[in-house]
């Protein structure tokens, strides 16, 4: 469970996130919507304890990011979009194993998890090759495996399909559906309304760091009087009805 409580984040005179409040229930796939620069990544970074909220707090599985950052980190897996942050001179297996051992997994457990994840993500053919020469889709698969190696309860996905081709994006969405079946709590940030529509039932919509809507997608459609999520998104961005 993720609980965001009146969180604000300020960088000098710039307020990146202002009084953000929403709640993601256990086992739910929740969408965090907003255009580029809306404050999604800053919110994710605060959840991952890389940034500290200027005010307010976030609780993940009952632990405060402000006061118990190590406990929070033990329970989350985070995947960043765009630059996936892999060690290009290490093999896919070495990349995943490194993070597994940092989460305190035994080497046999790490290998077990790598075997299982490489089967699910269809990585067997390149698992022992160095990551440097991989395509964007291959790298993203390795990054997903690294995020899930310690079997976290809460998974944070920050624009995870950025730069992926249709096939890779579809494999990724199937993976998210599978994780939901396993009862994982997932926060999925995106500016792609179609993707959010396929994966989430509830969303938080933020614009210029402020929460503009939180609740079910049906309620959002009803409030705007249209089924077209792209139109709703544009209305928010251009300062429409909301």
């Amino acid at each position, binding site marked *: 469970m993720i609980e965001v409580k009146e969180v604000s984040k300020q960088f000098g005179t710039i307020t990146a996130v202002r009084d953000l409040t929403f709640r993601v229930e256990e086992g739910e796939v929740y969408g965090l919507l907003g255009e580029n620069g809306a404050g999604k990544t800053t919110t994710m970074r605060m959840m991952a304890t*890389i940034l500290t909220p200027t005010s307010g707090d976030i609780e993940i599985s009952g632990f405060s990011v402000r006061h118990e950052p190590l406990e929070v980190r033990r329970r989350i897996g*985070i995947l960043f979009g765009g630059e996936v*942050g892999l060690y290009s*001179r290490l093999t896919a297996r070495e990349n995943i194993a490194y993070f597994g051992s*940092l989460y305190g997994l035994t080497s046999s457990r790490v290998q077990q998890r790598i075997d299982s994840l490489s089967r699910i993500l269809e990585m067997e053919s390149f698992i022992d090759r*160095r990551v440097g020469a991989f395509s964007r889709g291959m790298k993203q698969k390795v990054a997903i495996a690294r995020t899930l190696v310690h079997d976290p309860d809460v998974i944070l996905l920050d624009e995870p399909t950025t730069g992926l081709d249709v096939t890779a994006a579809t494999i990724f969405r199937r993976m998210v559906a599978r994780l939901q079946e396993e009862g994982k709590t997932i926060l999925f940030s995106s500016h792609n309304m179609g993707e959010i529509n396929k994966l989430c039932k509830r969303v938080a919509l933020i614009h210029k760091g402020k929460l503009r809507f939180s609740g079910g997608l049906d309620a959002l459609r009803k409030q705007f009087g249209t089924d077209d999520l792209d139109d709703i998104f544009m209305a928010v961005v251009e300062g429409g009805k909301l």
Partner: protein
Amino acid sequence: MGWQVIWIVLKKELLDLFRDRKAWLGTFLVPLVIIPFVFFLLGNSYSNVEKEAREYVPLAVHGSSRLIALLQENPGVKLLQPADPEQALQAGQLRAIITIPESFDEQIQAGKTAKLHVAFDSTNSKSVYARDLIEQTIERYSKEIVAKRLKQAGLSEQAIQPITPDFQNVASEERQSGGMLAGFIPLMLVVSLASGGIASANDLVAGEKERGTLESLLTAPIAANHILTAKLLAVMVMSIMSAGASLISVSLVMSVGPFGGAGDHFSLAFFSPVTLLVLIVVILLMAATFAGLELMLSTIAKTFKEGQTYMSGVIFLAMVPSYMLMPQSPVDIAEHYYALPVFNGVALCKEVFYGKVDPVHALVGIGSSLVYVAITIFFASRLFRREGAGLKN
């Protein structure tokens, strides 16, 4: 758990660095390729010039004397008569011009002092060699004349040589060998310790920040200080490997290189268990100081390129104390240098290579180095733990 995490991160950092061509180049290029290359190039060039200077000594002589016959006894001496001797000397075709006055031999026979004019070019080392050869020949001829004059006066040679000094060099062969090394080894050692870790330190923080790997690493349930400690140790390993390669490289150059004379006296016998221990401690502390400083700069930098710009200052910091103390013997080094950063390491290195380490100097040098290591690591840690330090933007 802390040391376990440090070990996991350190193992990964070293594996990553050992597969990085840039890190290998930064660590081993200077000590294993550039140093021997420069030594061989310098050595060969000196020995070639010396050989050419001995083999062919073209001289022009105006006038006549028995001295000319003595000069011609020297191997390589050739007497030439160019149309314009002054221009030939400037052009390097002649090494010297000797002008002998008409009454030269008569004045000598009359028991007087005869004057002789020798023109040479001090900017041409072959001309300087010819000047030395002429001077030695004149000295030989003068001794011959003096002996004849003394005999005519009924005196023995002892009459003009009342004292025969017997100079004894108290420096042992080990110390002479160490003294020779103490001039340039501290310079090479300190520069290798500073330069050997630059590429690694830059890659491990600024590079990781740029590639986004540091952000992922900071989401793992481990303390930032443990990550920094592992990175510091990895940079130290690369620095020490570079310094070790420098020492091996110099030893090889000194023993098998073109410096034949230096090689004959080359010995590591000035190392005793105590001096060796001091050298190891000094190397470790200097490696830690440079690694802390380099990680600090790498943390400030947003990109690898920015990091490279900052790092150039580290080499400067290593070179200034080394060059300043290079010509000094340990007995001439002022006490306060043993408490100044980097200077203390260079000064102690010199004592090690002279085979005698002053316990007070060792205590002050090592103690102050520990303080500097603590300061650099403290600031590196503060910067590294700063919010957003691992983020590119």
